[in-house]
C-alpha cells in the first residue's frame, strides 16, 4: 500500500462508521421489540 492509500484508508475508517454507530445509539421507541 502506498502512503496516500494509507491516508485515504485512515480517513474512511474514521468517517464511514460514524452514521451507523450514531444510528445504533438512537433510543428505541417505547414498546419496540
Amino acid at each position, binding site marked *: 500500500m502506498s*502512503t*496516500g492509500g494509507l*491516508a485515504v484508508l485512515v480517513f474512511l475508517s474514521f468517517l464511514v*462508521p*460514524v452514521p451507523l*454507530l450514531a444510528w*445504533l445509539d*438512537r433510543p428505541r421507541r417505547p414498546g419496540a421489540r
Partner: protein
Amino acid sequence: MYVGHFAAALALKARVPRAPTAGLLVGAGLLDLLFAPFVLFGLERATVTPAVSPGFSLDFIDWSHSLLMSVVWSVGFGLLFRRRGAVVATTLGFAVFSHFLLDLVMHPADLALWPGSGVHLGLGLWRLLPTGWWFVELGFVAAAFGYYVVRSRPGTTFGGRPALMAGTLAVLHLVNSPWVPR
C-alpha cells in the same frame, strides 16, 4: 488505536447524553481525519512498514497530533458547539483530546509537544507488544462500552441497540487486528 477512539466517544455520550453522538464520534477521530489530508497535501509524512507493527511509521504528524495542536483542535471543535452550552461544548472538545491521550499509549514516540518540537511522546505499545496491543485496546473498548451500556437504561436518550453496537465495534476491531493482512 482505532475502535478505542469510538469507544471513548460512546463513554462520553453516556456521561453527557445531551452531547450529539455523531459529533462525539467525529471528534474522537478528528486528529486522524486531519492526518489524512495533511499527508496527501505534504504537510505530514508517514511510511508504510509492512514488517514492523503496526504496519506504518508516522514520521511527522506534528500538525494533526502534537500536544499543542491537539489542544488547538479540541478547543476549536468544542467552540463549534458553544451554542449547546458549556458542558456539551467542553465534552465535544474533550472527545478530540481523548484521541491524543489514547494515542499516547499506543504510539511510539512520534507525538511532538508542538509542531517542530524535538521532544516526542509515546509509550509505544504498538512496538512493545506487536500483537498484544490489540488485547490492551480490546480491554479499553470493553471497559468504555461497559460504562456506556450500564448508563443506557430504558428511558435514556441513547444506547438503543447495545448488542448491534457491540457487534459493530467487534467487527471493526477484528478488521484492525494485527492478523489481518494489510
